[in-house]
């Protein structure tokens, strides 16, 4: 997410700093939360449909939701994260957005 590589760029211009800050501020996670109702096969299908996951990846995220209560299914800019959260809601899955502090 950074615009410069510190090892090769010992000094950072104000412009570069701004770019880095903006990129971090725009990084969000879409997190799907567990519910005791929706079928595992249904959740796998929704993940495949909305995120284009293959069966194995969709199943891994579904099991993470089931076993840990949550799974990060997408990371990126806020606007797209909102669109994914809306789509998940349309399929009656519980999704929240979290600012990505680690990227």
């Amino acid at each position, binding site marked *: 997410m950074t615009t410069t590589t510190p090892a090769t760029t010992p000094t950072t211009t104000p412009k570069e700093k701004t770019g880095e800050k903006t990129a971090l501020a725009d990084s969000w996670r879409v997190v799907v939360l567990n*519910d*005791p*109702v*929706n*079928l595992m*096969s*249904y959740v796998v*299908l929704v993940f*495949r*449909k909305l995120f284009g996951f293959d069966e194995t990846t969709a199943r891994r995220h579904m099991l993470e939701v*089931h076993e840990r209560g949550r799974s990060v299914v997408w990371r990126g800019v806020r606007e797209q994260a909102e669109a994914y*959260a*809306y789509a998940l*809601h*349309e*399929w*009656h*899955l*519980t*999704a*929240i*957005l979290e600012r990505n502090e680690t990227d």
Partner: protein
Amino acid sequence: MKRIEVKLSLSAVAPLLDIIKTAAGSLAWSLAVALPDFARDGEWRDVWARPLLESQNTGLAQLLGLFDSDFFKTGVIAFDEENATSLLRACAAVRLQVRAQFLTALPDAVMETGAVDPVTLDDGTRKALMCHLFLATMQEVIIRHLGNSILEG
């Protein structure tokens, strides 16, 4: 177009329809899943809640439409590539509402594992649980036979 017809036992399913209709009625003005915090107020609520509710109600109407007068003559319901997505979602919405409205006595762990003996439940809870399981079976049939169509659609 791929079409799946399922023949149901009228005597088994008819008693569950009251629960489905009641749950669907409760969802006429409220979403099956609460909006995320950021979308609960002001402009956000209008942008999210209204179209989500419209989409939810469209699905619920299709689900209830399966159990029309023809169903009571034939016992047959049909899924196809056009209604599969709406029905799948509507089943999810009604199952969530049935759980919230009629199955509060059952802990989440029981709901997830299905490890409950229906004989130990009171009549109302047992009927709601049967409805919950019936809708899950509908979802499984749709996913098994029309899942690929939904993914490609």
